[in-house]
């Protein structure tokens, strides 16, 4: 076989280049600590590496969400505990009010304290979450969910919205309980009623929460509702009370005196202030009562039931009803708090699970991506040695030339 001179040189040079390139790559691996330097080094491993990094990033994301959710749920839990305490105090007061011999001033002081506790509950119901939104407002977290209507009674201004968040692939949990569930829609033991001024009333009339004076009579009337309309007749303000379903009038064209009680079909309430012509108020019977409504009726009962046998009987009924509703409110609160507890557990266990998965992913990632130093360095040494050998042998061989011998 014949070998030309340029062949000898070219071959040698080519081999140096190859060895140099190999050595350079090994050195880069050692310096960066990465086995896979660019996707072309190992496209399959590369893709897997990217997937693993994705998984880790997603997991981090979920853990962030879980932390935020935990804070919020803990806040709600704390609020509900305080609320339950307030409910217990209310029970004490109501039981006290139910004990037979009470004087006028005793009643008054109980009513006062009930007012205070009610105020406490309202501000608990208006608690803000960690980002400044109201916890119990449903979707309308920018506005206080509980506030006074024109009559001074507490009304709910939020909605029934429920919010969830994603805490793992395909897993969501609810992060709020809205005010309607928690405080508003408490089942009432026996039929009850709620009063409301119409939206477009022009005057300054207010309607009190109202109490049941004669249970039998009221339950006969139930579930019908009342409409109280105001009219101006020759300079006098008059009112009419009629049934909403049938239009039957129970009180027609009565002269209006602010603050005077209006008693109809076993219910009693007061309208005060200055209502104008065409203003109206509704008295809607139903079987739900908010905790605030229950307290308002208690307070009104204590303050307005006269100290007569009928009055005392009516007060007893109010207190009984109040206690029953209170029980329902307590049950509801317990139920909701239990739900919060369950969710907090889920959050905790999901966090644990994600941490464990992360560990596994990190290990796999390291296997794929990180260089085995022992192997790489011994490879580097070997390549170095090979390069030296090649250089030396080339130096020798290239010096040989027949011309030198001539």
């Amino acid at each position, binding site marked *: *076989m014949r*070998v030309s001179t340029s062949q000898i040189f070219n071959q040698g040079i080519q081999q140096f280049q190859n060895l140099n390139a190999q050595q350079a790559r090994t050195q880069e691996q050692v310096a960066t600590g990465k086995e896979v330097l660019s*996707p072309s080094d190992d*496209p399959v491993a590369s893709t897997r590496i990217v997937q693993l990094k994705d998984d880790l990033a997603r997991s981090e994301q979920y853990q962030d969400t879980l932390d935020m959710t935990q804070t919020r749920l803990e806040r709600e839990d704390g609020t509900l505990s305080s609320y339950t305490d307030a409910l217990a105090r209310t029970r004490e007061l109501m039981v006290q009010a139910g004990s037979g011999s009470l004087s006028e001033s005793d009643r008054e002081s109980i009513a006062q304290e009930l007012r205070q506790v009610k105020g406490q509950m309202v501000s608990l119901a208006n608690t803000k979450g960690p980002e400044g*939104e109201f916890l119990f407002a449903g979707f309308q977290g920018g506005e206080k969910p509980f506030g006074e209507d024109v009559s001074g009674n507490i009304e709910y201004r939020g*909605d029934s919205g429920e919010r969830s968040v*994603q805490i793992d692939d395909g897993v969501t949990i609810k992060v709020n309980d809205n005010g309607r569930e928690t405080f508003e829609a408490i089942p009432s033991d026996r039929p009850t009623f709620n009063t409301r001024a119409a939206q477009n009333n022009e005057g300054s009339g207010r309607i009190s929460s109202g109490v049941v004076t004669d249970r039998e009579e009221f339950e006969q009337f139930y579930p019908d509702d009342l409409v109280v309309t105001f009219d101006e007749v020759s300079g006098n303000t008059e009112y009419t009370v009629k049934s909403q379903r049938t*239009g039957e009038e129970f009180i027609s064209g009565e002269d209006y005196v602010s603050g005077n009680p209006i008693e109809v079909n076993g219910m009693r309430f007061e309208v005060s202030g200055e209502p104008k012509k065409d203003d109206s108020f509704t008295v809607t019977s139903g079987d739900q009562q908010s905790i605030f409504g229950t307290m308002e009726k208690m307070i009104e009962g204590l303050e307005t039931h006269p100290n007569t046998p009928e009055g005392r009987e009516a007060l007893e009924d109010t207190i009984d009803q109040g206690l029953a509703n209170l029980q329902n409110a307590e049950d509801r609160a317990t139920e909701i708090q239990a739900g919060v507890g369950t969710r907090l557990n889920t959050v905790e266990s999901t966090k644990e699970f994600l941490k464990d998965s992360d560990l596994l992913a990190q290990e796999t990632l390291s296997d794929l991506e990180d260089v085995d130093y022992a192997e790489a360095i011994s490879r580097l040494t070997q390549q170095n040695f090979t390069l030296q050998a090649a250089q030396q042998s080339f130096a020798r061989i290239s010096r040989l030339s027949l011309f030198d011998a001539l």
Partner: protein
Amino acid sequence: MSLLNTGLTGILSNQKALETTSNNITNANTPGYSRQRADFVSNPSQATGSGYIGQGVNVADIQRLNDEFINTQLRSDTTLHSEQTALVENLNGMDDLLGNEKTGLNQALTQFFGTLQDAAESPASSSLREQALNQADNLVARFKSVDSQLRSREQTVDDRISANLNEINSLADGIAELNLKIAESPGRASGRDANELLDKRDEKLRQLSELVQVQTNENNDGTVDVSIGKGQGIVSKGNSATLRLSGSTEQAGRREVLLEGVGRDRAITHEITGGALGGNLTFRDEILEPTLNGIGRIAIGLSERMNEQHQLGQDLNGNLGGNFFRDINSESLARGRITPSAETAESGDRQARVNITDSSKLDTRSYTLEFTGPDDQQYRIRDATSGELVKTGSISDSRPSTISMEGFEIELESGDFQQGDEFTIRPTYNGARDMATEIVAGEQIALAAPIRAEASSGNQGTGQITQGTMLNIRDPETGRRLDALDENGNLDPPMEIRFLSENRYEVVDVSDPANPKPLDPPMNNVRFEPGKTNTVFSGDPGSRTLTASGPAENGPTADPDSVYGEQNITIRTRDPETGVVSTQSPITINEGGDKESARSIADKLNNQRGVEATAYTEATLTPDPSNQGNNPDIEVALVEGGDVKDVTLNVNGPLTADSLNQAIQENSDFQSLGLSVTNDGDSVKLRSDRGEDIRISLDATNGAELGVGKPNPYGDGGTTGSETLSDGEQATVGGYVDTTLADGVRLTATDNPSPENFFDPAPSSDPAYKGFQFELSGNPEAGDSFRLETNEGGTSDNRNGLALGDLNAKNYLDNGNFSFTDAYGSVVEDVGSRTQTAQVDKEAAGTLMEQSQKQWEEQSGVNLDEEAGRLIQFQNAYSASSQVVSVARDLFNTLLGTFN
């Protein structure tokens, strides 16, 4: 004498040999130099008496040691190696650019979705919203950056291609020149060629093979014809062709390799294979362009999907979401996807655009659209890289004309399209470059949904309603805006679901809360299954509702049989995929003029596919206050075909609404009729939610008159008609049939107005689809109601935010194969494996080329040691020959000396 000559021949020959050897030595490093050897040939011997006496030596030829077979092999291996080298060089760093965390898209995509999920967790937090917006901007910037890096590689490779073509041109010129020189070289006739000319030509051919695949064909006159690629000739004897690269990127889309010709320049890009040019073209058209297309597809798919979902939401200011990213079908973007060829563009009047119709169906190919003739309507669409035929067809003359493809459509807007027109279509190529965010402030991110539901606090039952899910803002088929929500995202009208009984409800318009009206189209008698989850609205975007209860004036009548004429109802269904229309066998109602009840008609309709009919009847009984009589008896009967169920009410005292109501309440048999009763003090309304006819008979021997009316359940209410009954009279009230037709289903009826048509022969129907859905469950009771309202103030609502953050979890792109990050991963993997393959192939090709080179060197390369040896050899021979001359001279001198 001959001794001298013989010696001289030796001297001369060896001199030439030495010259040849020294030529070899000095040219040892000349590229393409084939070693030469002097061919020693004995001179013809002279015949003498003593036999043949040789006459010395002669150099017949300076032989060039070169094997054409080895040359061809070497060129072939060189072409392969250069091609892979060019690929490796172009690919260098591209996989790193795409795959690297700092420069690639993967992290930006993940972070974008991550911040959206964060914002969804706390929709009221303005800092989280800002963050999400920043990440969106960052993502767009990253898309653009990757895109511009790739485009600059495109610019580079086009420059390389251009340089390749220039080199090819100059090599072709050189070869043609050499051809001429070789053909005309003296000595050609006697078979001797100028060796260095041949070397030079071979070297040029080898250099050419580095650029492109080369085939040669030697002619008898010594010229060589050269063709490249798949057989495109570029050198023919003394003539060479010229190649160039077409236009600029903006104008023609892709730059083609053109062969300059007498008339037109012909595009020969598809003919080019092998070599650096082939490698550059392969890189540009088969790797770089699909990569740009692939990344563009992700940008387009993300924009489309985000926008679709974002439009369903509500932002912090209470406005409907609108577009999150730039609209992918805006005019400038749509027009930029289709470019005319240089010639087609000359006329300047063709206006076309490419609209993306469904980004999930897009692939990463580029296409050419050609109007091939023979008329101006026929066209062909091909894959721009492989040339594969994708679609043929013809357009109509009307403008705009649309050609539908998978995931996009080509809209020819205006202009004189004609035979010979050519266009390049790249639906996704500009996707990344054109991407932009449309929203500018965090509060514009639509994380909430615009709808919500509220159960009335007076509800007695245990019914529950979900808060609602948005499905569409536009009709998915027509693109028309659905009108259930107005432009501000307010529910129009606000609605209320009212339960009429445990398993029937109506949905009414409560724009005026004090005066609820029927919905348009109506939902007056909807079935509900207690205990199960029921959807409230139709989920079928194509469904339509139509009503039938005869003309408006038709009220109760004394003679029910005289009311409606016989009609045949035909249901036709058009299959939305195939367009085939199927007809079901018609049904006959009111056969022979016998009036059918609404219930019976609804039952017949429900047997037809794609039809859901519901029937109900309402009758108002209004006593006359001026003629109340005393103790009248009223018979209420439900008439269903021949079947009659009746109950007689004995009213106590004068006939008033209240006393009638009382009689109803006290009658224990009345329950069995299954009618609901409402009393407003003036009249009593009876309702059957099954649709039988209600017949009222009055037996009032002591006076009393009773008005029987049929209320209008649609539009503005009121009554469609009434009859006043006196003693002994009766009236029958017929019901209504509300029908919902599924997508593509149409109902027609024959016309028989004698005296009336129950169904309008060509009834108009209204879309039933609202674009959202609520679910009812539990056990509601009669009288329970649920309000559907606009989500005003819903700043804590994150329903749409959850959906937005979840977009990457669903596989949407590539017909449901890839999520967005998957699709990007696939692009990176493709580039990575192409790079790895190219590297491996380059090494393999390099080895092959080395082998060929070795072979060539073995045959034609100069070995200095060998030449050194030869020097000595010829030098010795020269000396020996000169000795011969010297001896000859001595002999001559001796001879001369004899004569002196």
